[in-house]
């Protein structure tokens, strides 16, 4: 696809939707639904400036720390659990139990345990975002190819070298599939953790706007969240293409033949 075409595909639908929204809300006086231009203005005045540094950046910081820990811990624990049979048998039923608990209910609990601070919010993000990465890694380690495994063994590739050159790269497709889910879970939990007990952050601000009937501002907050999600997806795509170029190439070839 040519770059021009790609840009057209990327922006095509959003532009159509905005035009549609503009047409439908033309002449509308509904207090709860702002018009596109009005919203764009609000978006600019509300979020660019002081609020960006006081609410958006801290939120993003907590999200980043939470996600990094969730992904890192998920991979390390997943490799450990996946490659140790007794540990896997021991932990697997319990992991399913913990995973089944909806992380938002942990917010009040973590508030009591950790207190109302950044650590609590990061902990909430980790507690929800770790599962897809962790469980996918465990599953991936279990399913490594037996012939590749024999190759490693016959060449004496063991221990750390085995993890680094064989297991980790072999599991990367599953890890990345997990990371993709973790990103959206992390974003959701970032907002939720700020809705409960907080005096700053995106979640807090959006709820605050809603309570004060600052409707266009509230909408603009939702748009900001959407933009953050989009940004995460783009970063993910960028990283994934680099890390898994071999995987996509391999898949393309096996599909051709």
């Amino acid at each position, binding site marked *: 696809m040519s770059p021009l075409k790609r840009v057209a595909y990327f922006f095509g639908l959003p532009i159509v939707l905005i035009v549609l929204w503009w047409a439908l809300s033309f002449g509308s006086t509904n207090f709860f639904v702002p018009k596109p231009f009005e919203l764009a203005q609000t978006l600019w005045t509300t979020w660019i400036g002081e609020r960006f540094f006081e609410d958006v950046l801290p939120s993003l910081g907590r999200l980043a720390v939470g996600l990094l820990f969730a992904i890192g811990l998920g991979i390390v624990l997943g490799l450990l659990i996946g490659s140790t049979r007794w540990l896997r048998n021991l932990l697997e039923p319990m992991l399913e139990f913990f995973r089944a608990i909806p992380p938002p209910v942990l917010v009040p609990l973590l508030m009591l345990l950790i207190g109302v601070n950044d650590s609590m919010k990061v902990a909430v993000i980790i507690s929800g975002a770790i599962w897809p990465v962790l469980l996918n890694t465990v599953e991936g380690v279990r399913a490594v190819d037996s012939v590749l495994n024999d190759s490693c063994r016959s060449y*004496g590739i063991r221990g750390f070298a085995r993890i680094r050159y064989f297991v980790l790269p072999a599991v990367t497709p599953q890890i990345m599939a997990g990371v993709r889910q973790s990103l959206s879970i992390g974003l959701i939990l970032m907002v939720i953790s700020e809705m409960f007990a907080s005096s700053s952050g995106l979640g807090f601000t959006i709820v605050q706007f809603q309570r004060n009937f600052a409707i266009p501002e509230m909408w603009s907050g939702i748009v900001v969240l959407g933009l953050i999600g989009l940004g995460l997806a783009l970063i993910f795509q960028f990283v994934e293409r680099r890390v898994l170029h071999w995987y996509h190439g391999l898949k393309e070839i096996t599909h051709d033949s």
Partner: protein
Amino acid sequence: MTVSDTTVNRPVKTVPMLSVRGLQKIYKVPGGEVEAVRDLTFDLAEGELVCLVGPSGSGKTTLLKCISGLMEQTSGTVELAGSKVTGPPKSMAVVFQEYGRSLFPWMTVRGNVELPLKNQKVPKAERTALVDAALKSVGLDHVPKSYPWQLSGGMQQRVAIARAVAYRPQVLLMDEPFAAVDAQTRADLEDLIRTIWKQLGVTILFVTHDIDESVYLGERVIVLSSSPTVVQEDLKIDLPAERDQLNTRALPRFMELRSHVYAEIQRAKLGPVTEQITAQRKAARK
């Protein structure tokens, strides 16, 4: 018993490079046991190229996994240059049949060949030289930066061979390495193995189900019975050392040998197996 008396008497020099004694492998399966390999005894002298041929399902892969230390035998011993094999030995390399699954798809051709050396902490300069030489010897010095999956099946198997060559093993085990490539590529790869064997003086045990291939490649052919496996015959291949696909395969002696091996395999398929099956059934009933 099933072992024939045609075993070639070979002068045993000192310690054989590879020595298999009374090897037996019984798999435990739900509802009983399956004896894949019953009793195998044979030696490989240093620098020999020996082919193991047997009917399909004769436990060839099982045998190779036991010899390479990837699987534990039920009884018997495997010795490499006089020392017992209990796990994958350092001076042994294996080339598997499934080339597509034995190379790392996330590494380039060069990376794949280099990895075992890197793992052994071979210094960088020496490593580079070894990898270059190995890639050249299999005719792949033009694609070091490609990924295995970008290459044809035959070329992928060449990469696996190059990896084994660069590793400089004393013994090279090959488990039906050419079973999944087309006939023409196969002929090229067979000649490659002969060439590499002569250049390196490595001891090769080549497992195959292809009778012609075993006679063409080997200095000796060990014919296995069908499962539970014993050595049916140990046959010396007295063909000239210089072999080529056209002339060697047209030699009357080649024809004789291949017919002989073919007959042996047919005998292996029919003969004692029926008795063994009835014996097994009796045992199972107990």
